[in-house]
């Protein structure tokens, strides 16, 4: 049976949980050897990605992408962070700010596969659609 990247990542997470740094680096080498044996070295990137996901999920970390017309000021970023923290009941929020002038104003928040469109451009589009009807 083929072992999926997610399963590898889960195994790695279970193994490394609560271990010291020295132990972990030893484990990583063994893990890499195991990957080589299974011919899975090519999916390393995918495993790292999945590991990140699992790590974030277990530790209540949320990666959020915020699109805004101008770069967010500190106070704005803090507000957004606390909003997301509350909404998703997360312990920590990692914010990634993307500047896109095309949205004209407001912000778009992306968390995982959920998206909240609070941009001026989005609202204008809605207005256009409803007027056309």
């Amino acid at each position, binding site marked *: 049976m083929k072992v999926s990247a997610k399963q590898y990542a889960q195994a790695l997470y279970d193994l490394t949980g609560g271990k010291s740094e020295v132990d972990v680096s030893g484990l990583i080498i063994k893990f890499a050897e195991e990957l080589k044996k299974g011919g899975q070295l090519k999916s390393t990137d995918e495993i790292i990605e999945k590991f990140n996901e699992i790590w974030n999920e277990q530790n209540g970390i949320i990666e959020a992408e915020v699109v805004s017309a101008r770069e967010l000021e500190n106070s704005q970023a803090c507000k957004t962070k606390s909003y997301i923290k509350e909404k998703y009941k997360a312990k920590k929020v990692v914010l990634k700010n993307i500047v896109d002038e095309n949205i004209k104003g407001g912000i778009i928040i992306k968390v995982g596969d*959920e998206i*909240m*469109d609070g941009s001026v451009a989005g*609202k204008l*589009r809605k207005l256009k659609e*409803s007027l056309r*009807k």
Partner: protein
Amino acid sequence: MSSQKDYIIEQLKKQIEGIKTETKTEKVGTVVEIGDGVAKISGLSNVMVSEMLQFTLSRTNADSTRTDAEKTVLGVALNLEEDQVGAMVLGEYKNIKEGDEVKSTGKILSVPVTEKMIGRVVNPLGSAVDGKGAITANKDESEANKSECEYYPIEKIAPGVIARKSVHQPVQTGIKAIDAMIPIGRGQRELIIGDRQTGKTAIAIDAIINQSGEDIICIYVAIGQKESKVARIVAELKKNGAMDHTIVVVAGASDPATFSFIAPYAGCAIGEYFMDQGKDVLVVYDDLSKHAWAYRQISLILKRPPGREAYPGDIFYLHSRLLERSAKLNDDLGGGSLTALPIVETQAGDVSAYIPTNIISITDGQIYLESDLFYKGIRPALNVGLSVSRVGSAAQIKAMKKVAGKLRLDLAQFRELEAFAQFGSDLDEKTRKQIERGKRTVEVLKQAQYEPIPVENQVAVLYALTQGYIDDIKTEKVSDWERNFHKYMKSTHKETLDLIKKEQDLSDKIIKKLKKAIEGFKEIYTE
């Protein structure tokens, strides 16, 4: 003038105020893989099976000349895998690129349904393709209600046992051979099966044409058909005044396979809308073998395992769930009905191929057409022995039951004797008579295309046949005799025909009148 301007501005202001600008959380995904009308999407957690998805074309490949509507393409989620969603694209998939955003809509794939569709040609998504403009819900209502069209889901669970009633009213196809020997009832599923070029579509079209002036709404679903053929059919329906009660749903040969796949379900959903209003509907699926091909293509691209003839495992369920939706509803539900005439094309008369056997087992009977008979000049090229209707005489008017009762048996006996008689000419009187009668029966059952005959005329001519009034007419003159007989009945004995139509039975009084009419005609008829 200025007051009018002010009014418009006021209206606009009001409308703009009415728009809610609240921000909602939406589920999105990204296209990972796209090809052959099927997309693999990551993300989109909580998406439902057969939910509509909206592909937003990215800025680079959607040029500025497109309108907003053209910048999005609809899709349907089919495969829900561990961390991917397999979706089919409804429309042009070539503009979709890897990395494009996909939004879920929270709606199951559905078609708009309205009375205004009658007389129109639409695609499987319910939009008009006949160039007569968009179909709006109701033109006479105020502007505000314009967009409120009813939507019916494309996939629906068929009515259960309690909701149904047994089939008891006839659908008159106007074809003598079918109405007399293989009657179709309202709510029945009757398969039309045969090789290419045996007149399968012709039977269905004749049945639609014969509904002019009746209370049945017809839906013709063209699945993967040549656009030229569809255009010809629409023109023919128009010419015969049948478009007034007909909706044509087209998934052309050049449309994506996804359109062919959803077309019959869309046609059925439109039919259900009318059935739920207590109306009678006739749906023709032309044809389900092409539908199976389209589904096979989609399934194989979605990497579902292939089975016999490379069809996926659920190919049987694909058709059974569609045909189960034809029903005769009970009176509490309005008593509407949906009759289905699926068409299946066989290769070289092979009815035991995978798709034909499947569909034969689901339907309530089949009309089997043979190319041999077709080339012999027997048209419709009906094989009476293999064609059956499992509903049977429950779906015939009494008058027809009386004249057609023995027809099938007579014809079967004639076939047997005919083969036997070829060896020698020494036949006893009775056998010879039976053969002569059989020959005339075959002649009478011949019928030209686009010439459906009203049921009362059918009863009259079949009565003349079964009572032996045609026995002394030369075989080759029978069709001429019949044509003149119909003319004569219409001009001089119209009240007899009307009486048959009204009473739907052959009472002694009518029989007497009918006999008199036939004898009267025989006196004046000269070959």
